[in-house]
């Protein structure tokens, strides 16, 4: 497939080269359309969000009130922190103008006059790269007052986070933007009614926004024919772990996971077998290596396989991988990143990690497997935001699909069990 979001064109990140290849042409076109026509185009394209939830983007845009006395805001989510995910960083570095162009188009469609691009604090270097591109775009009149003499004005502000996975959750992002701790908000009210500063707000992922210029340029019909009809378009797949060529690959949705691993990422080092695959970032359910045959990188196919697309950050593990160590590390992450608002998540993530450490050290009791499952089940669905689910799913799926791995690590002596319980309490 031709690459649209990360094209192989030298210096594409500069305004000059971006313009030479038709850059900001979509913005010109959009400004000649009615705002609702732009939204309609995106809606018909069937573009679905690339941040993890696969929500239809055009539909989300229609939630914004047309008649309101309040200011309206767009937040572009570049907090990218889900383990295994490293695609948005490529956009900041290699195609920042497409992100800027998409942001202005989205603002025009929804009648928004200020957009904030929230970027994780660790990406300081990439914030500077994007700021350079933004300054150039302002200088050329693509952003700011009276854009391309259309009468439409909008500003874009870059906002740097300061290290918190939870700020990728849209309502936590808004609180963080407001200068607070990144605590997720209870919904409803939804952001389109009551978002940042109590105003109507739309939050879209960086990669999602990059699809807008493409749709406007080439039309929804063209776009909707790329990849899987129900979840179409180009998608950035990050492949990491035990593969020969880890990296971000732009493909059409619906690519076979096996093709992604073997054709794009060069297969497994030393031709080992695949033991397990996490298909879309650490929170998505783990799949057994032998079960990925025929599974495709799109929402429906991965759902049918018992997992999800998430951020399309695939983590591949070979036959020698210690999966108990993997799940213990993942659980430590969610324990570390839980914001602490909801008891099931705050306490439960810590319990999961502590009990998993018993399996790692060989001190667990066989009943600890069910205990893990019980804790995970009690976190899932019982928290304000999806971090609780994100912590529960990897544990639940690991137990369901690799129970033998846990059983192998159970302590052989009852005395060890007693001491491990004492140590943990």
């Amino acid at each position, binding site marked *: 497939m031709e690459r649209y979001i990360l094209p192989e064109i030298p210096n594409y990140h500069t305004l000059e080269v971006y313009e030479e290849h038709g850059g900001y042409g979509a913005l010109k076109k959009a400004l000649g359309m009615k705002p609702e026509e732009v939204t309609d185009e995106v809606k018909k394209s069937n573009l679905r969000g690339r941040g993890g939830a696969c929500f239809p983007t055009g539909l989300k845009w229609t939630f914004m009130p047309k008649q309101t006395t309040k200011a309206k805001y767009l937040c572009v989510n570049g907090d990218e922190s889900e383990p295994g995910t490293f695609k948005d960083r490529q956009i900041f570095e290699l195609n920042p103008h497409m992100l800027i162009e998409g942001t202005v188009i989205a603002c025009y469609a929804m009648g928004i006059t200020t957009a904030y691009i929230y970027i994780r604090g660790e990406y300081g270097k990439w914030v500077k790269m994007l700021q350079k591109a933004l300054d150039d775009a302002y200088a050329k009149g693509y952003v700011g007052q009276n854009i391309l003499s259309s009468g439409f004005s909008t500003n874009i502000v870059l906002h740097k986070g300061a290290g*918190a996975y939870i700020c990728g959750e849209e309502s936590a992002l808004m609180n963080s933007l407001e200068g607070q701790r990144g605590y997720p908000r209870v919904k409803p009210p939804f952001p389109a009614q009551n978002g940042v500063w109590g105003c109507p707000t739309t939050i879209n992922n960086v990669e999602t926004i990059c699809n807008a210029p493409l749709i406007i340029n080439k039309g929804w019909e063209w776009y909707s024919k790329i990849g899987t009809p129900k979840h179409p378009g180009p998608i950035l797949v*990050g492949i990491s*772990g035990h593969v020969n060529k880890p990296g971000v690959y732009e493909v059409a949705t619906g690519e076979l996971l096996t093709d992604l691993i073997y054709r794009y990422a060069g297969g497994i080092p030393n031709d080992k077998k695949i033991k397990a695959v996490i298909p879309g970032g650490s929170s998505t359910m783990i799949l057994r290596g032998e079960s990925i045959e025929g599974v495709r990188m799109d929402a429906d196919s991965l759902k049918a396989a018992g997992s999800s697309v998430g951020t399309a950050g695939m983590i591949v593990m070979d036959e020698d991988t210690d999966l108990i160590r993997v799940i213990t590390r993942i659980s430590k992450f969610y324990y570390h990143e839980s914001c602490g608002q909801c008891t099931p998540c705050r306490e439960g993530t810590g319990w999961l990690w502590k009990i998993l450490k018993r399996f790692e050290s060989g001190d667990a009791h066989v009943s600890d497997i069910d205990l893990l499952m019980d804790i995970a089940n009690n976190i899932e669905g019982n928290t304000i935001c999806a971090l609780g689910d994100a912590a529960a799913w990897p544990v639940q799926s690991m137990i369901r699909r690799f129970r033998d791995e846990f059983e192998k690590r159970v302590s052989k002596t009852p005395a060890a069990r007693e001491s491990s319980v004492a140590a943990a309490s």
Partner: protein
Amino acid sequence: MLTEESLKKAEEIRTRYPASQAALLPILWIAQEQEGWISEEMMRYVGKLLDLPYGHVLGVVTFYSMYNSKKLGRYHIEVCTNISCMLRGSDKILETIEHRCGAKPGETSADGKWTVSEVECMGACGGAPMLAIGEEYYENLTPKKTEEILSSLE
């Protein structure tokens, strides 16, 4: 306290948001860039600047992992040990660093040169294992390459 130059930047930043509280994170970044860390005195100062209680500023500083409420060594070595890095040998990288710097995660070396931190996913999984020093990422590490990076900072 913020220098005149930092204050100027802070003033400009306030104009980017409809409410001044939103300038808190960016101004804390400015404070940290100026001092290398954020002291209690600085938190109180920033609080006054934005008309926010000290407790709010303290709550924010301690919530976000990148604000340092303690002084760090001259170089802050952050090593990712999350899953993609772990699968590609981050424990060997961390070992190399601990040995070379004489500090374990969370510690600063006795000579004040190195602070070592074990960090969560930095979004460089395709270049795992990795470490970061300041804003610079070092990817596709081996113990030998790690030694070389640390040597170049001597």
